[in-house]
Every structure is written in C-alpha cells, then in structure tokens.
C-alpha cells in the first residue's frame, strides 16, 4: 500500500505552548483514518499543518507526496474538505452548487461538466440534480457536500463530523459511500467527537495534549484496553494520560 500522509516528529508550538508534540504517523491510500481528541488536544493544529495552512515548528511531513515545509500550495490543491455544517448554498440547486464550487477550485467548464456527471453518479444524487438544495433531506445535503469536496478529484479528503445528527439509516448509507470513496484509492480523514462515528474508521488516532497517545483499528484498541466501546477506550486513555502528566 502506498503512503498518502507521512509525518515524523511533527511539532508545532505557539509561544511556550506545544499544540502538536512530535507526532509520527503513516496513513495509507484508501484508508479512512479518524482523529479523536478533546478540545485543545491538538487535532485542529495537526490538520492545519497537513492541509498546508500552517507551517510546523519542527519535524517532517509529506502529504500526497509534497512537503509541508516548501510545497503548501501544491498540497492545498490536493485536499478536499467537508465541514460539519456543510457550506452549501441553500438557494442554488444541487447542480448549481457543484458548478459554483468548480469555479472556486478553478476548474474549466468542460472539466466541471465531466466531474459533475461522475460525482452525481458516485454519490447517488442524479434524480435530485435540479432540486433546490434547501429542499433536499439532510442525508442528501450531506452527499452533495461530499461531492463538492471531491470536485477537483483530490487524493485526500478531510471530513468534520460528517454524520452527526442524521438518522441512522442515512448515516449508514453515507458511511457506505465513504467506503466506496476509499476504494477509489482516496485517503479520508475524519474528525469527530462521537466515538460511535469512530467505529466506522479503519484506524483511529487518539490525541491528548498534542501527543498521539494511541493509534489502531477500533476493534484492536477495544481488545487492547479491554473495553466494549470506543468511548470507554477514549475515557480510559484520557484519564491515564492525565495522571501521567
């Protein structure tokens, strides 16, 4: 398997505060990797470095083959992002939203048309292409938001709590879509506060005070710490790290 994101002792300090502390991590193409951690654990700072928005203080990282130190513009073009409260235009149709984002990403009109066709098929939105976004059920808005994030065919996509608040059926079908997206060779990073969402990831990394304190598949972590849910694993790890600190 090819490595998609590689970090070595990646560190970021703000003054005397170390937000990300020597994180070493390999994430592979086609992998769904979950970042878990309390507020202030360092997730956002780490992601900002991996998306080329913030320079590290120390350490190395390659993202999609580009170096975060000198090639952040190339990295930004290879990243897709889907926010928790999807930034879709409610009074545009589904199709118009895609065209609009295509323009933002600087795609040519023929490229936009081609990608639109592929993505409507991929996310299963064809029948709704002409509908006003505000009239789409939440589960479909979510699919449209993912299509927007995939528009410029990025190898790496970041998803922020992608399925919070949707009903369980829509949630499961959205995760199936994420698995299909991973099978195309895309790497997907998921940040979430909800440990049941973490269960859907291939591997998760748990952060605490800037450090990556555990990395592994959810099933393995649960066995390792002898817990039945990821929430329990998380709380146990958090408590033992607090005591050690």
């Amino acid at each position, binding site marked *: 398997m090819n490595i998609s994101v590689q970090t070595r002792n990646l560190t970021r300090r703000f003054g005397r505060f170390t937000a990300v502390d020597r994180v070493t991590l390999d994430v592979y193409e086609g992998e769904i990797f979950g970042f878990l951690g309390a*507020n202030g654990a360092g997730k956002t700072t780490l992601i900002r470095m991996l998306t080329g928005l913030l320079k590290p203080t120390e350490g190395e990282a390659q993202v999609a083959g580009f170096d975060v130190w000198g090639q952040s513009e190339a990295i930004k073009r290879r990243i897709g992002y889907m926010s928790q409260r999807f930034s879709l235009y409610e009074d545009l149709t589904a199709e118009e939203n895609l065209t609009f984002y295509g323009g933002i990403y600087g795609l040519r009109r023929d490229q936009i048309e081609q990608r639109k066709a592929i993505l409507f098929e991929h996310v299963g939105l064809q029948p709704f292409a002409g509908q006003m976004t505000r009239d789409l059920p939440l589960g479909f808005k979510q699919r449209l938001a993912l299509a927007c994030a995939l528009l410029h065919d990025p190898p790496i996509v970041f998803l922020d709590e992608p399925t919070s608040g949707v009903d369980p059926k829509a949630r499961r079908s959205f995760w199936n879509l994420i698995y299909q997206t991973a099978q195309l060779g895309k790497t997907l990073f998921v940040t979430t506060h909800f440990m049941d969402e973490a269960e859907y990831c291939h591997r998760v990394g748990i952060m605490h005070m800037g450090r990556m304190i555990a990395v592994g598949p959810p099933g393995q972590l649960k066995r390792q710490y002898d817990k039945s849910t990821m929430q329990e694993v998380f709380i146990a790890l958090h408590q033992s790290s607090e005591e050690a600190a």
Partner: protein
Amino acid sequence: MYAIKVRQFRKRYGDLEAVRGIQFEVEPGELFGIIGPDGAGKTTLLRALCTLLLPDDGEILINGLNTRHHVADIRQIIGYMPQRFSLYQDLTVEQNLNFFADLFQVPEDERRARLEQLYRFSRLGPFKKRAAGALSGGMKQKLALSCALIHTPDILILDEPTFGVDPVSRQEFWDILRDIQRQGTTIVVSTAYMEEADLCDRVMLFHQGRILALDQPSALKAQYRFPLYRIEADHLPEMQTYFAGLSGVRFIQRFGDSLHVSFTREPGDDLWQTARDQGLQRFERIAPSIEDIFMDLTTREEHESVEH
C-alpha cells in the same frame, strides 16, 4: 402523579406535521431521554413542555398543571436549556447567574447558597470572574445548565445539551446531570447521538414526529430478536459480498475493520466453517446498539406503511 403527562399531542407548521399525536409520561425523578435525528420533532416537543408553544391537539400536564392554562406556574416548576443558549458573552459567569437569578426573582437570602451549590455542581467556581465569551464550549454548556437551574426547578428540560461538546466534557456533563437527578430533579434531555441513550433511565426513540419505542435502554436491546455478529476477515469487501449472498442475512454493515451482520436466526456451525474457507478471521456475537434498534424500527415502519 406524573411529572409530565402528554396526551395526544399534535403540532403542525403549515403542511408539516412536526409531532403527530403522541402520548407518554415521565415519572418524577427520572432521567428521561428523547433520542432522534435532526428534524424528528424533538425541539417542538420540548418547547411545548415548557409552555413556549401550545398544542394544536391534545394536552400536556406538568405536575398535573395544563400548559394551556398555567403558564406562569409551570415556568416556576421548569428549567429550560434551549439548543442555542443566549448567554451574555461579555458578562462574567457570576454576572450571568445573577442576571438569571433576578429574572426568576430568586430571593436575596437564598441566592448565595444557590450560587455556591451551582458552582459545586458545574465545577465553575474557579471561573466565576471569567467572561462567558472566554469559556470553552464545555464550560459554556455548564454555565447554561446552571442558569437553567437557578430557580431550583422540579423539572429540568435540556435540548441537545451535548451538541458539539468534546467527549471528555460530555462525560462530565452527564455526570453532572446524574448529580442533579440525585437531588430529586426530574430531567428530560434530547439528543441526536444514539450512544447517549445508554446514559438515561428510560428513552423515547423519536422519528418523524412519532414515538418508535419507549423503554429502558436495556429493555429495548433485549427486545431485539435478531442475532448480531461482528466479523473480521482478510478482505472485508469480498466477505461482505459473500454474506450478502447467503439466505437468512438481514443486513450487513461495514464498520471500519469489521462487518456487522444481522441474521434472521442463529446461524449454524457449518455457516462459520464455510465462511472460514472464504477468509473469515474471527467472529463474535455482539449486543445491538441503540442505533441498530432505531434502524430496525424505522425500517419496519416503512415496510408496514408500504403494506397498508
């Protein structure tokens, strides 16, 4: 007497029927969860319990008082923490609490003791001089909760209090709710996060304005009739295809490094033996989650509405 009694409550917004004639009771002192996705009607229901909107049909009784006729009395009984709470960002924690104490006319001589108690509950004592706007998300929620409790209500109603709150603060928030419950307060809390159902005494699974089920979380799980297995394999997509072709398989869901497979009845040893030849590594029977139960009930409901 019930803390809350809801009879045939119905609420429409134009063509949309937000709540469709529901009926339930909440016992005094219980921690009662309303679990449902966005758009289920949770906020409409909670606002009606707080007298903030009136039923189109049906009745809501709070400690026996009808929300149609006893608005002022009921508001003294109820503490309400809405979804987007408007704390005064540029007032300190203490000033916010005092503001709400004024609003609810908490007598001066009781106020100090009440505030001390709330600081203990919320663990906000060390932050009383901090501006609300400078608090973390978890602390803001705790301040909002404290403001809702300022007048010592019998019944506390919380609309998605843990939305967007990190897992550690969330755990702490639920611990605080348990503390409040131990003081005798009845708590009704809504959430879209299915996993939080397990933290309630009883839960109502709520979907499209209807009650799918209402019981203790353990009882809901016990009613789930279908054997559910967690499966690990060398190649999950192939294993998924393999199980999809078997009869007696109700559904298969991918979960990261595993599959969850639900069967109509207990599979025999021969099934597992054959699956091993196909690359099965490990299997274990697991308890259903509230999400599994919710899924099952909504699917069943759709089938029934098709048959009618």
